């Protein structure tokens, strides 16, 4: 009796706090998405699924979804490959690499906003250090507009995103690499396997589980990316970097169309849940192994 009282006594505060900020908002947003709720219009009539229909036939929502997919298709493999590459590098025994282990956490530790602004200074099309350096070494013959050219802006945002995100996969992969017994690669080496063969047929198969986790985790992160866009491009130029999450933000906070914003969020949540189910499945699969 006392034990049960203690158990619920310790668990309830957390439950209440979490429920207040998830369950209640969830149902509140669900109800909102079924109403025409625009702060600049009077009334809040029930409209059924009209917001969802509007969202699904909205051309900006379409183009932002495509931009988001492009972002995903480039950013997720890039971050994963960078993380894997850095982990492989750090797993080598070279004198002085200890310091790299310390440094690698830094991009991830600072606020995304700070990282974004830092890169905004570096990528500036008139006074940026990157243009300055490239120009001085004659790699370019005129300054490149990294953030204000519609062709390059999305790639720039992806690069900054990758710079901040790669430490996490790098650490995960490194931890996984350290659990691989060195005898395995040593045996392959004695069998005259090349470095690439050792990686491809010995190391990589053993990295399958962390690889899948990183892929899905980074997908979830990339779908909800917001801070970087806010400080780097504000969705522009034009709509070049208007990701789906950014569009949801503008609909909600700029157009003040809360009903439509909620509908857009739930559509995104539906896609996210698919990824999360995949994610949980993978983690469970790993446990069986």
């Amino acid at each position, binding site marked *: 009796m006392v034990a049960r009282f203690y158990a619920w006594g310790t668990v309830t505060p957390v439950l209440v706090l*979490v429920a207040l900020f998830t369950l209640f908002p969830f149902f509140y947003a669900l109800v909102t998405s079924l109403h025409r709720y625009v702060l600049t219009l009077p009334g809040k009539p029930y409209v059924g699924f009209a917001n969802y229909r509007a969202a699904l036939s909205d051309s900006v929502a379409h183009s932002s979804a495509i931009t988001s997919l492009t972002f995903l298709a480039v950013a997720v493999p890039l971050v994963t490959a960078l993380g894997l590459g850095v982990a492989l590098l750090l797993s080598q025994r070279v004198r002085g690499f200890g310091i790299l282990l310390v440094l690698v956490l830094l991009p991830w530790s600072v606020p995304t906003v700070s990282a974004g602004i830092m890169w905004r200074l570096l990528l500036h099309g008139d006074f940026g250090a990157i243009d300055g350096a490239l120009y001085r070494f004659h790699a370019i013959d005129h300054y490149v507009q990294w953030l204000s050219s519609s062709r390059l802006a999305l790639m720039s945002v992806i690069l900054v995103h990758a710079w901040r995100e790669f430490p996490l996969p790098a650490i995960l992969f490194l931890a996984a690499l350290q659990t691989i017994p060195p005898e395995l690669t040593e045996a392959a080496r004695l069998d005259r396997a090349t470095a690439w063969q050792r990686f491809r047929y010995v190391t990589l198969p053993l990295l399958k589980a962390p690889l899948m986790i990183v892929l899905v985790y980074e997908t979830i992160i990339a779908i909800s990316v917001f801070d970087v866009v806010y400080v780097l491009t504000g969705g522009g130029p034009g709509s070049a970097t208007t990701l789906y999450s950014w569009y949801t933000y503008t609909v*909600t906070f700029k157009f003040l169309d809360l009903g439509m914003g909620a509908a857009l*969020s739930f559509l995104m949540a539906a896609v996210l849940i698919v990824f999360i189910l995949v994610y949980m499945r993978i983690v469970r699969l790993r446990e069986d192994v």
Partner: protein
Amino acid sequence: MSRRARWHTGLLALAGVALALVILVPFGFAVSASLQTESQLIERPPPLVPPTPTIDNYRYVFTGQVPEAYKQRALLRGSVTQEARVLPKGLRNSFLVAVGVVLVNLVLGTLASYTFARQRFRGKQVAFGFILASRLLPTMAVAIPIYEILRQLDLLDSKLGLVVIYSAFSLPFTIWVLTLYFRSLPPEMEEAARVDGCTRFGALRYVALPLAAPGLAAVGAFSFLFSYSEFLFALFTTSSTHAKTIPVMISSISVNPDASYTLVAVGIVMSIAAPVLFALVFRRYITSGLVASLTRR
């Protein structure tokens, strides 16, 4: 060492140096920019090392004394902005909020995780599953309702409001990591203490807690970094310097086209100093916590 092996080591060292540069150059450039005058910084190309290092920009932020360099108007692109004067306040707000969230996480998180790890009671699986699943809700979807809740509780534009939101968002992760941690500890010592008449809380307080210190350090570091850096909720629930955190303040300076880049750089340096220090001090705990949370179950 054979010639081939030497080549090999040389290439690895080169890659290591490249990695270090990719990580450090952006930080270094921000620090360097903050120590220059605007007219130096907007040269093409900008100097990588300040030609005549000056702390005038920092002095302006802390004392309001406008740097001499800003009086030669014609040479400048941007100007000093009053917004920069409130940066120390934002730093203070960020710190207070982050410390508050860490305390809530350590106290409520530890109590709940220990129960989840060691006790059997009806409804446990549901409660645990619910807390973990709550993390899956996209923040953008719940932004407006959370604004509404804060308004009802009269917590808009307050540090306490941010502490409450961030606690609700960070506790699931904390409980996940700490429950794993408590479970990984051998239960025998706690059982012995219980046999000797220790209460459940006593066993936690005197036996498990000291052993769980690395886990506590990890979740403390996470909740600190998370709440120090969070942007979206801080952006739209705060409206005055009373509660605005440093990410909100520097973002507003940076999107102001007239603000001097040197002051933007000062903002960056001020906002990254604490988390960088934190990451360096807590590196081991952060690393092991991250690995455990993403791979174990």
